[in-house]
């Protein structure tokens, strides 16, 4: 698993890490059941705090992409197929773009209803 981060970017490091795991699942490079690299190895290699990596992993768990189990580390969730993940990534992009325009979540739901 290859992870790159740019410390000079405005995007938080944890979000940069999470985005790449999301991308790997969406592209099918990581599939359901695959194990992710131990957080300690990633943190040491990137020169970041281990909690930063763990924060990225728990965010992905909250999105339903990863399973975190004590002693077994992080694995890709059985339901995290490339298609489902790509769709989720599109939704995230939509919400981010809407926020930039000052729209609320309800506004976005309204928007989606209007186009479907």
């Amino acid at each position, binding site marked *: 698993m290859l992870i790159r981060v*740019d410390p000079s970017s405005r995007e938080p490091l944890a979000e940069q890490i999470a985005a790449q795991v999301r991308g790997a699942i969406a592209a099918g490079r990581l599939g359901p059941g695959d*194990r992710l690299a131990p957080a300690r190895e990633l943190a*040491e290699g990137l020169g970041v705090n281990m909690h930063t990596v763990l924060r990225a992993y728990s965010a992905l768990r909250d999105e339903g992409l990863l399973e975190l189990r004590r002693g077994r580390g992080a694995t890709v969730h059985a339901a995290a197929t490339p298609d489902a993940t790509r769709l989720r990534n599109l939704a995230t992009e939509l919400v981010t773009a809407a926020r930039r325009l000052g729209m609320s979540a309800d506004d976005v739901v309204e928007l989606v209803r209007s186009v479907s």
Partner: protein
Amino acid sequence: METLGRTRRVVALALVAVPFVVVGVALLTAGGLPDPVPTHWNIHGDVNGTMSRTAFSVMVLVVTGAAAVLAAGFVWAHEDDAVRRWGVQACAFTAYLMGGLSLGTVLLAAGVPAAPGVRLRWYVVPAALVAALGAPAVIHILWPVVPVRKPAAGASPRLDLAPGERAVYVATLRSRGMLALGVGCALVGVVLLLTADLMVGAVVLAATVALLALSRVTLRVDDGGVRLGFGPGVRVRVPMERIERAEVADIRPMAWGGWGYRARPGGRALVLRAGPGMVLDLSDGSRFAVTLDEPADAVALVNGLVGRRHETA
């Protein structure tokens, strides 16, 4: 050139077979060996160990014969010439030591009616040692010098990294074969500890630890270099400043000295199976290989880090 090298290797293998032939002829022709045959003497030259004549003959012929067969096996199976020569030399040492000592025994004991009457002469052990060390030395001189054929360069992708960007590659290499061997070894070791020799059991359990450490290895590439982690605490590092280039390669275990973690004159390798892997060219001319299911990302990252290092230096 190739045939000359072949002839030299055949002569070296024939040298390893000499003790088997000589001792075999000695056992057949030396009439009147006592039964049992003396096999051990104390410091004063008196017999304090014996073996039945049949057991002695079988043991001597099996050890010297197995050494000759094993030497041929090394040349046949291994692709690395240094490993072949080393294997043949080790077999020669064993064959000449065993052959020399037993030839001495046969010559001293021939015609003596009973084992206690056989006196050990002072020169037997030194002569066997000289033969055991001399044979590998002769093989060293005899062994053909083959120019190392540089393998065709494999794919060498490179990741473009921005100046401040950080990147890491982590892969866990698992080997079911090593795990199965380790578990088998553990069972044998425990049985040996309980039923037989403590020493042998301990050696087998030590092998278990080594095999289990090889069943799960963590590979990490970062700007410090390439690192292998075997179980808790054992690390092998290749610092980035020693790496010149990385490439994707097809790894044949016998070209790297076999399976496991191998260190040879030409380089080191972690070989858990045959197939794709990453090979690093190091600044001292040696190479470092590791089997890896999808080596492209790791190779690209090493090349990206090496390239950025050279550009900023």
